[in-house]
C-alpha cells in the first residue's frame, strides 16, 4: 500500500507524522522506489540543532534524553530523537529498548522518537543516522538528539557529527578510565556524571575536571562536567544551559560553520565510497577474482598484481562508458 511520492511529500510538508515516519523508512532502507527522496528534502535542512548523546550501556542515556527533551519542550521547541542500538551480527535482528525510558515524551505531539538498528552497515551507519537527522530537520524539528552506545568507532562518529556531543558516564569505579580508553573523553563537549545519587559522583567529577585541565583546550572550549540524576531530572536544566552555551560558542567562533562543512565533506565521501564499493563487484569482476585467486595460489601472480588486474577492469569500464 505504497503512497505515491507527490502525496507523501505533500503530507510530509503538511506536518503529518506518519509521512515523516514513512520517509525515514525509505531513507533507512535506501529504497529504490524513491532514491532521490533526500534530494527533495535537502533544501529544507540546516535549521535543526544537533545534539549527540553517547556513553556506556546502562549509563542512563535514554532516561537523560527523555528528561532533556522535557526541558527543551518548555522552551517551545520541537524535538526529534534518534535512538541507535546494535543489530545482532549473527541474525541481523535487533532489540530496540530505548523507548522504555522515554515514556514521558511518548505522546507529546512536539516530539518524534525513532529507534534505529545499526544493521551492521560497515561505516555506513554514521551516514544513515545523519540522513535520518536530515529528514527530521527538514520536517521542521528545532532540535535533533541522537543517542548511541559509546562502544564502536561508528557510534563515536555519529556522536561527533552532532554539533554538541554529550558524553554520559556513571560514578562506578573505573568508568572514567573506561571512557578514556574508549575515546569518549576526547569527543566530549560536555561530560555528564549521571546517577550522581550514588556514591563517588563528586570524586569522579573532580578527577575528570582535572583530566580536562591537563589536556589542550579544544579550540577554546573547556568541557564542563555536570552531575545529574536523570530519572529525577536533577541537573538537567543545567545540562541544557551548557548545551546552549556551547551552541553560542560554536556560532560566534565560526566553528559551527566549519562543523557543517566537514559533515558535508564526510557525507559526500561516504556516498562516493559506498557507490564505488557497490560498483566494484559484479559478475565480471567476481569471476575474474575467482580465477586470480587460483593464479595466486599456484604462484603465478601476487595478490597485489591480481588486484591491479581488477582495478584495470574497473577503469576500463569507466572509460568505455
Amino acid at each position, binding site marked *: 500500500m505504497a503512497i505515491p511520492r507527490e502525496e507523501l511529500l505533500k503530507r510530509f510538508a503538511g506536518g503529518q507524522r506518519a509521512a515523516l515516519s*514513512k520517509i525515514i523508512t525509505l531513507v533507512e532502507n535506501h529504497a529504490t522506489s524513491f532514491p532521490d527522496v533526500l534530494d527533495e528534502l535537502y533544501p529544507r535542512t540546516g535549521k535543526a540543532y544537533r545534539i549527540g548523546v553517547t556513553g556506556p550501556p546502562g549509563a542512563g542515556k535514554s532516561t537523560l534524553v527523555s528528561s532533556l527533551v522535557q526541558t527543551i519542550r518548555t522552551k517551545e521547541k520541537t524535538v526529534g530523537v534518534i535512538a541507535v542500538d546494535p543489530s545482532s551480527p549473527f541474525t*541481523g535482528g535487533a*532489540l*530496540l529498548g530505548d523507548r522504555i525510558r522515554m515514556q514521558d515524551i*511518548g505522546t507529546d505531539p512536539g516530539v518524534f522518537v525513532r529507534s534505529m538498528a545499526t544493521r551492521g552497515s560497515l561505516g555506513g551507519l554514521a551516514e544513515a543516522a545523519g540522513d535520518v537527522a536530515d529528514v527530521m530537520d527538514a520536517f521542521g524539528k528545532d532540535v535533533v538528539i541522537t543517542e548511541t552506545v559509546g562502544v564502536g568507532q561508528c557510534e563515536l562518529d555519529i556522536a561527533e557529527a552532532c554539533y554538541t556531543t554529550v558524553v554520559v558516564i556513571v560514578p562506578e569505579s573505573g568508568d572514567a578510565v573506561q571512557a578514556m580508553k574508549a575515546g569518549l573523553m576526547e569527543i566530549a563537549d560536555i561530560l555528564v556524571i549521571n546517577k550522581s545519587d550514588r556514591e563517588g559522583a563528586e570524586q569522579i567529577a573532580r578527577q575528570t575536571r582535572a583530566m580536562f585541565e591537563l589536556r589542550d583546550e579544544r579550540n577554546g572550549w573547556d568541557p564542563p562536567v555536570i552531575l545529574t540524576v536523570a530519572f529525577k531530572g536533577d541537573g538537567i536544566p543545567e545540562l541544557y544551559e551548557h548545551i546552549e552555551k556551547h551552541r553560542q560558542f560554536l556560532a560566534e567562533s565560526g566553528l559551527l560553520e566549519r562543523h557543517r562543512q566537514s559533515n558535508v565533506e564526510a557525507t559526500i565521501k561516504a556516498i562516493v565510497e559506498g557507490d564505488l564499493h557497490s560498483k566494484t563487484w559484479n559478475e565480471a569482476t567476481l569471476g575474474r577474482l575467482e580465477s586470480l585467486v587460483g593464479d595466486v595460489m599456484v604462484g603465478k601472480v601476487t595478490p597485489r598484481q591480481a588486484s591491479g588486474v581488477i582495478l584495470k577492469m574497473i577503469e576500463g569500464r569507466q572509460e568505455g562508458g
Partner: protein
Amino acid sequence: MERKIRVLVAKPGLDGHDRGAKVVASALRDAGMEVVYTGLHQTPEMIVEAAIQEDVDVVGLSILSGAHMVLFPKIMKLLKEQGAGDKLVVGGGIIPEDDIQELNKAGVTKVFTPGTTTTEIVEYIKTEMASRA
C-alpha cells in the same frame, strides 16, 4: 537492500508482568526482526503513537489483565484514525475463544493463547509479511 520486518511489542494494561512479552521480543529478534520493545503499562495512545513513529509492520500486544475487550478495539480504532490501519496486529494472552472471534472481527488478525511456541509466532509473522509484500 533487504527490508527488515519491524515489530512493536507492547504490554497494555495495569498488571506488572512482562516476562512473556520479553520472551517473544527476544525470539523475534533472534529470527532477524527489528523489535521495538516499549515495556509495561502502555496506554492505547502510547502504543499507537509508538507504532506510527517507529513505522512498524507488526504490532504485538501481550495482555493478561482481562481488559482485552476494551484495550484491543481501542487500539484498532486509533490505528485506523491515524491512517495506520494497514499494520498487522496480533495479540497474546489468556483469552476465551468467543472473545478471540470478536477480536478477529475487530481486526486483530491472530491471537496466540498460552502454549503457543515462539517458533509458531515467528512463522506466522514471516508468512503474513511475505504474503503482503
